């Protein structure tokens, strides 16, 4: 089964960097679609990014405090068996 990938969307803030501030779920955790997975920080805003699917948080593809780019792959969600 192909994992679903959480991607950093365009937040519409062009003049300030986006960083990954904190993971909100641990690797291997069972998550639901829409459940906050990771918080990113950009200037005066933080944004909780929701899981794109039900399943297991199989892989974290970025580190806390890492500077991110729009479209970057952040997490892989695998279907729970």
């Amino acid at each position, binding site marked *: 089964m192909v994992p679903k990938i959480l991607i950093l969307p*365009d*937040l*519409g*803030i*062009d*003049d*300030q960097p986006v960083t990954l*501030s904190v993971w909100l779920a641990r690797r291997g955790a069972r998550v639901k679609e*829409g459940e*906050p997975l990771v*918080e990113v*920080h*950009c*200037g*005066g*805003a*933080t*944004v*909780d990014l*929701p899981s794109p699917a039900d399943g297991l948080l199989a892989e974290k593809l970025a580190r806390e405090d890492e500077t991110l780019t729009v479209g970057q792959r952040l997490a892989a969600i695998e279907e729970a068996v």
Partner: protein
Amino acid sequence: MLAYFLDRLPFARCLELMRRLLVEVGDRDDGQIVLLLGEHPNLITIGRGGSPGNVRQDNSALKSREIEAIYVNRGGGCLLHCPGQLAIYPLVPLAWHGFTVGEFLDRFQAGIIEALADLNVPARTLPGIHGIWGRTGQLAAVGVAVRSWVTYYGAYLNVDPPLGLFRLVDSNPHQPSPPAPTTPWCPPTKLRSVPGEGGSMSSLMAERRGSIKMTMVRAALVGRLAEAFGCDRYHLFTGHPLLRGEGKKDEGRMPKVERKPNDE
């Protein structure tokens, strides 16, 4: 838009209210916006862009002033809150309105700037940093959070706080320079360049060199923020039903103003 005047409210209680309203706003399918306006007792909050190093006093000094410092999950840095500072918390369902986070911030700041212009206080944003500045210094700090694509937290507008308290924190340790007007959503006439800026906090009272009533500021903000977020109509309430027993006066739903129909 529903606007609630909360008077003075402990920060933790207000945050709890916002978290409950987040769910309500997110569950609706009509794009309803909720705006909370109130003041907090003395407190320091450290946002994701701040650090304990931005607090200029040690714990014992803060304790002697009965000021607590807490971490919060909003954007922005280390901020001091106190009576005389108006907390402005819009809960906006971004997806329903088709706003990105950046567009929401632009509209939010532009609405505040328009309200300040109504109060004869010229103000502007600076490039590369969120917040609002006047001739005498920073007038409002901005720090929001987004969950399930609904905004919470917001901005803190210094109306007539004791400015000496702001020396306790460094709110903009990395403020870029030089400043320049950057809010294209505002009419250019409202964005005329104003001399002076800097990291120091100022207030509407300092800008006007005279007293200003919190009620005037709240009224100007509600109208301008409704416009900024594309609302044709708004309702004003004193207190909030979920805060029964918290306010000093009535806590019921008391609609005061209604404008054009057919708005969310």
